[in-house]
């Protein structure tokens, strides 16, 4: 399956979970989604998101987003996210990072909810009618107060997408130390994965590789996308391209600049990351 075929698996209106710019975010896949012209995505930032999200919002692909933050890191605020929110074109549901993790862990475990400490006293709670507070049923007798604790509903995203280093013949993918992606894949109904390369055999048979593998049980479809994380980095294979993110942040400040960015880096035939990186 090629990158565009993978992107075609995302229907308009789909709920799609994306990851931060330090966690194997699928840059090439996001650009392919823009080229495909997907509409009305409901994004989930696990637990925050960055470049791919801002790009999809700028291209008009996104109807709503639940996240704990949208950020371009050292390059600052995510300009198309901010603009879309200000223009009323984007529904934003705010969360806090561990709440996103917890909701996925509940889905991973097949339970309807999980508790989380902290958060009480944040205005987030008042804006989340889907969150509940109960008195801790396990508080020590005689502890006095009710010991209120937050309960969060399970979240099983319709789709998750990320970029892995390798896929094997069994449909397993290797994400190395980025094992939070395993939780994401376990919790999600389907996972679409781009990979740097295919490898023969079954990585789960290799004791050295197995701990960084996400089993094919959780992987719906795979496409090879060389440099597919770019401008995000991939473990020790290539680094985060801070200069390109800075350029994106500068261009995306305006609609016109964003259009220029897309013309140069998104809508060229094929995905431009390959030729761009090859030229460097």
């Amino acid at each position, binding site marked *: 399956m090629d990158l565009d075929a993978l992107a075609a698996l995302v229907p308009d209106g789909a709920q799609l979970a994306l990851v*931060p710019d*330090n*966690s194997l975010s699928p840059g090439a896949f996001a650009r392919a989604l823009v080229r495909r012209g997907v509409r009305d995505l409901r994004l989930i930032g696990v*637990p*925050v998101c960055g470049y791919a999200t801002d790009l999809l919002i700028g291209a008009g692909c996104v109807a709503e987003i639940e*996240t*704990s*933050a*949208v*950020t371009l*890191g*050292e390059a600052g*605020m*995510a300009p198309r*996210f*901010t603009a879309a*929110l*200000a223009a*009323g074109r984007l529904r*934003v*549901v*705010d*969360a*806090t*990072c*561990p*709440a996103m*993790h917890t909701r996925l862990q509940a889905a991973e475990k097949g339970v309807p909810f999980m508790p989380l*400490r*902290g*958060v*009480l*006293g*944040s*205005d*987030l709670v008042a*804006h989340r009618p889907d969150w509940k507070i109960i008195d801790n049923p396990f508080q020590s007798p005689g502890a*006095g*107060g*009710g*010991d*209120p*604790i937050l309960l969060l509903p399970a979240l099983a995203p319709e789709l998750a997408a990320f970029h892995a280093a390798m896929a094997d013949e069994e449909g397993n993918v290797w994400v190395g*130390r*980025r*094992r*939070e*992606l395993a*939780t994401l894949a376990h919790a999600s109904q389907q996972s679409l994965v781009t990979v740097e390369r295919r490898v023969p055999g079954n990585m789960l048979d290799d004791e050295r590789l197995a701990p960084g593998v996400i089993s094919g049980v959780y992987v719906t479809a795979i496409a090879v996308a060389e440099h597919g994380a770019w401008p995000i*980095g991939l473990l*020790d294979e290539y*680094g*985060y*391209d*801070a*200069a*390109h993110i*800075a*350029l994106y942040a500068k261009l995306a400040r305006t609609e016109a600049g964003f259009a220029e960015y897309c013309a140069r880096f998104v809508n060229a035939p094929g995905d431009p990351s390959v030729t761009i990186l090859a030229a*460097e």
Partner: protein
Amino acid sequence: MSGTSNELLLIAAIARLITDPAAHPARHVAVGAASPIPAAACWLAKMQGADIRLALLHRPRGNPFTEGTRELFDLAGQGRIDLFFLGGGQIDGQANINLIGTGAWPGTAVRFPGSFGSAFMYLTVHRTILFREEHSRRVLVPRVEHISAPGVSPAGTFRRGHAQALVTGRCVFRFDPGRARFALASLHPGETRETVRAATGFDYDEPAGIANTAGPTEAQATILAGPVCDAMIETYPDFCRRVWGRGAKENGGKEEAA
């Protein structure tokens, strides 16, 4: 060093707060993304001999976690993170922080990036140093418009720690969680009680003896420019270039010039 002295001053001030013997011991410290000044302060404290384990969340290589930020939040939930840093688009006199924005929820006037893990970390870690370089009535407000994370919590609500201090570009405030109130602790060079008062939107205490915030010693400056910069250059190349004139990007010039 004139152009960078403010950053070095802030690093030194934060390093002193980290190793404050009166505070909960900072054995395990986590630093979030885009926080080069707190990160440098942690490295400085560590390289001066403090027994600190550093969890640098944004470090691309040698990231201490294998389960991403979930592992950080789990550690904090257990009480295994002693110290964390938080900022805020707005911070008020009760140490409430606002990372959402201004105007109607969710920040329709000015949007901030979002709450990140603040709503959780502020209550589960043993202490928090608030850091915001901009010290103005725009940032330091009488009451934040939205509370991402509360400065204090009612009795009976689980909470391990509070703000230890608020470090800005003008001064250091200490926070007293019992009274939910800041007190001026030290003034940065060039600031007075009056300039700070004028730039601060919230009320605070002003004790009799206010020290001047001390910059790094010569020994500290040497450590900062050497091993601390070495440790940070991969994660914060722009910052290292700006502060120490090191860490030019190899493949960045072309795109930036484009």
